[in-house]
């Protein structure tokens, strides 16, 4: 299901090259879009302070905190929208949060 069945669809396509009614084939294709560019504020992961409690992971609305072997990694900035929820829940000040440009 991770195949990008929509990769041939782009803004140069003629009407008959698009799917009927704009139907999206396949699943999980939001992964293929860099929606992180909408971000106006950015969280920063401070690994030294992190206790790997993983409270931040389930509250992220964009699944932008990757977890490998029960440990969180740095943010997936292609998909993080900068909502700041992870920063709010972190009990250990392991996430800072700033508006871009500040």
């Amino acid at each position, binding site marked *: 299901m991770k195949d990008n069945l929509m990769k041939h669809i782009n803004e140069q396509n003629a009407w*008959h090259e698009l799917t009927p009614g704009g139907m999206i084939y396949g699943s999980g294709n939001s992964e293929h879009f860099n929606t992180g560019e909408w971000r106006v504020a950015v969280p920063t992961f401070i690994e030294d302070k992190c206790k790997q409690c993983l409270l931040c992971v389930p509250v992220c609305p964009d699944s932008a905190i990757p977890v490998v072997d029960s440990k969180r990694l740095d943010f997936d900035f292609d998909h993080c929208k900068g909502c700041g929820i992870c920063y709010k829940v972190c009990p250990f000040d392991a996430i800072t949060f700033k508006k871009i440009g500040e």
Partner: protein
Amino acid sequence: MAIRERLSGNEAVSIAIRQVNPDVMAAFPITPSTEIPQFISTYVANGTIDTEFVAVESEHSAMSACMGSQAAGARTVTATSSCGLALMWEMLYVVASARLPLTLCCINRALTGPININNDHSDSMGARDAGWVQIYAENAQEAYDNYIQCVRIGEHKDVQLPVMACQDGFITSHAVENILLLEDAEVKAFVGEYEPEKYLLNEKEAVSMGPYDIANYYMEHKYQQKVALDNAKQVIYDVAAEFEKMSGRKYGMIEEYMMEDAEYAMVIIGSSAGTAKDAVDKMRAEGKKVGLVKVRVYRPFPEEEMVKALSGMKGVVVMDKAEGYSALGGPLGADVKAALFGRTDAVVLNIVYGLGGRDVRVESIEEAYGRLFAAVEAGSVPFGYDYLGLRK
């Protein structure tokens, strides 16, 4: 072997739905279409059909449920009238753009206000630009035959559009007429199984429907709908030809009556066409060269058929059972004039008639032809349009 019966239009369509045995019906009762969900829910309760009947809380929910159901991969039907159709408005467009070929039995009733339960075409005429195929019946037989064909037309791979099967409230929906029904097995074989290429409940192939469409895609998707509606015409003829083989009854985009040597033509939709045929017979007996064009399929509009049928006429009177409030005329009048523009020298009159159940008699139709004769005699086309059967 045809089954001879006497049925109302609502009964006839309900039997057609029973014979099609759709997967889902979601509907909310509204006069005069109420009997249809009533009969279907009775069939379901009695175990005659295995349709899932969804009793919803409004027509907004009915069309939403139908949309979800058809998207899931289920053959879906609903029925409504008047304000019920109006409450479906938002979803009518979404269903068409999502290319979901569900069927809607529209029992034409005046759109409030003032509140009125009787027949005219103001409900479905308002939905004429929603991207649905619209087919109108003159009588119960046509309502039955049209519904069975509508299922095939919408689901055809070249079309994939929702279809509205319209008949006149009370006049057709409640009056009992002689009718010929098809055998259950014949209808079942004719409509076959609904086999969508993509559907939401296909566990082997995930899809998402109805996504947000940015400016770079919207126009191409609207054009896809236009092409599908254009394609519907050939499919309507093909399905009608197949239906004729089975039933012996012939259908097309329009029906021409006494048009071979006619000089004056009337264009009309629905049950009034039956009254108008009687008027044509009477006037023909008096030596008047009158004919009739009945619009069966209104969307897609039968442009070529209309121009061909009306070419060479001295005068054409277009009858609208809906007030368009365009200050120019009714919807059918505007469409027929647009089709004829630059292609004929005929005097074209547009008359609004029969609003909110106002009686339409043979004499009413004669009066409309009379006004046409006068306009042709005067050799000029008056601005605007006029009412028939109005107290002045």
